[in-house]
């Protein structure tokens, strides 16, 4: 005779929880190992592998990608996106595995937090910014 349904469900749930817990521990350890230092920066690979075209990015990944620059540390990207360490490590690890980015030594001094993505405030600063863009595009 079969045991009542709820007993089976209970057992499977418990097993799943244990398996899932162990999986997360392993993932956390592995990510710590793969990406020990969040104070490193990221840059796009200049010669990306063939698999790059197949990369599927989700919204969270796009958020990270939009901050990638040798000057931004992984920790700064994490804070800018209000992510935790596991989340940022998981995403960055995925991007590295996909051959999209590489870990690089951060260029120059670390950024003051307010320097992120904030458009220039006063008018003179703004037009200077646009003029720099114009000069750069002209020189392309």
């Amino acid at each position: 005779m079969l045991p009542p349904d709820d007993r089976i469900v209970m057992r499977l749930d418990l097993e799943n929880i244990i398996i899932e817990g162990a999986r997360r521990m392993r993932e956390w350890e592995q990510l710590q190992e793969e990406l020990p230092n969040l104070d490193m920066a990221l840059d796009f690979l200049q010669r990306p592998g063939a698999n790059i075209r197949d990369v599927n990015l989700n919204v969270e990944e796009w958020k990270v990608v939009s901050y990638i620059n040798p000057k931004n540390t992984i920790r700064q990207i994490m804070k800018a996106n209000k992510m935790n360490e596991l989340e940022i490590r998981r995403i960055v690890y995925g991007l590295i595995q996909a051959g999209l980015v590489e870990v690089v030594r951060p260029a120059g001094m670390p950024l003051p937090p307010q320097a992120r993505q904030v458009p220039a405030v006063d008018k003179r600063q703004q037009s200077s910014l646009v003029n720099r863009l114009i000069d750069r595009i002209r020189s392309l």
Partner: protein
Amino acid sequence: MQTVKMVVTGPFSAGKTSFIRSVSEIDVVSTERKISTEAERIKETTTVAMDFGRITVDDDLVLYLFGTPGQKRFDFMWEILSEGMLGFIVTIDSTRPETFREAKGILQTFRAYAPTPYVVAANKQDMESAWSVEDLRIALKLDPAVKMLPCVASDKESVKKVLLELLYSILEEMEKK
């Protein structure tokens, strides 16, 4: 360190990817992704096709080019797109009148979301069947004040011209305030 963005939008196959590829210093990252809304609970999915290019201006300034088809349900992408967005470019396939209405719709959606300057790039002007800029302006019922520029997205000089016109508009807009 500042990051500014320009968004390149337009119907499917209008030339967004080609446009960004012509001027980006990194290999343009293109992606198509089915994204579930509302944290997977609602099963409905939306395809998000995005391109991503970069132009480093100097030590303190980077310009990102984002290509997006601007489909209706992209609220969740808007946060990413709009932050630091200077302006946008609507690309149109000048050879395909059946897409003009959609292009106009995308333009209006973007206008509603972002009161930033924009230009319209009448793309594929190298093709014989391309509508002229004048005819396109009439077909799209564009205000004479809106800049519409002939474009060949695979031609770097042509893309530069469109970007520069947008930047001139941005500068003008700033001076007005």
